[in-house]
């Protein structure tokens, strides 16, 4: 009874240090961690729902010139301005935005933190008008 904390003192002598050895041993994130954005341009339909839902206005859609095939659309996700709320990924109807578990986003230049992707949005099929007046898709 003379030594009130002797149990803990001895325990701590032989236990491991509580410090995490981070840069040497990489750490795994918890499940559903909201890290760096990954964008899949091939699934996107340019509906603009993510832009509407983004509170810090980090997402921009750049519309290119209209060509024969369609319009080139570039989506830019500015991680300098992102809050990582995952609203864009939740609202995306085609699941083209994903928040990965990559947490180490260190940049010396501002432009390194911009995630972007582009795709060509196809024109709607041309319509032929029959003599009878009906509309037929080609």
């Amino acid at each position: 009874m003379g030594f009130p904390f002797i149990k803990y003192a001895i325990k701590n002598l032989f236990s491991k240090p509580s410090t995490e050895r981070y840069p040497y041993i990489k750490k795994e994130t918890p499940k559903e961690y909201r890290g760096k954005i990954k964008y899949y341009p091939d699934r996107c339909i340019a509906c603009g729902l993510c832009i509407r839902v983004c509170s810090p206005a980090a997402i921009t859609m750049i519309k290119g010139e209209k060509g024969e095939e369609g319009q080139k659309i570039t989506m830019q996700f500015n991680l300098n301005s992102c809050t990582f709320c995952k609203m864009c990924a939740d609202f995306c109807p085609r699941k083209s935005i994903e928040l990965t578990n990559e947490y180490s986003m260190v940049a010396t230049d501002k432009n390194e933190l911009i995630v972007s992707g582009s795709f060509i949005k196809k024109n709607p099929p041309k319509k032929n008008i029959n003599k009878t007046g009906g509309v037929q898709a080609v």
Partner: protein
Amino acid sequence: MFDKIVEESKIKSPWLFHLNMGSCNGCDIEFVALLTPRYDVERFGIKLTGSPRHADIVVVSGPLTSQVKDRVLKVISQVPEPKVIVSLGSCPMSGNVFKGSYSVEAPVDRFFHVDVSVAGCPPKPEAMIDGILKAVEILKEKRGIK
């Protein structure tokens, strides 16, 4: 000879100064966690200092509110060269959700040069360690020591 030893040992132990520019305290709490035994940034010789005049690395968080702007510039001008400025989170680089507010001066790099920016809202302490280690490398370059 003596000066050289001092110069080299300054690299081994950069002193950190933490500056809150109107942050919501999210980044600050995560940053203070670095100094606790769990992440323990003192392993790399990094020490938190109370005065900007002793600092080598300035860690900055928050969107720079108009009230604090003049004071921040004054404090940063007191830091001796060579200095490295690390920004934590999205706020200093863009203003985050406060963007466009009348009381926020948002992108901080209009006023001073930001060397390393760590993204996240708030960034994970591990990401902050990465950012600070990068800042130490930049400090090494600025001091001209290999």
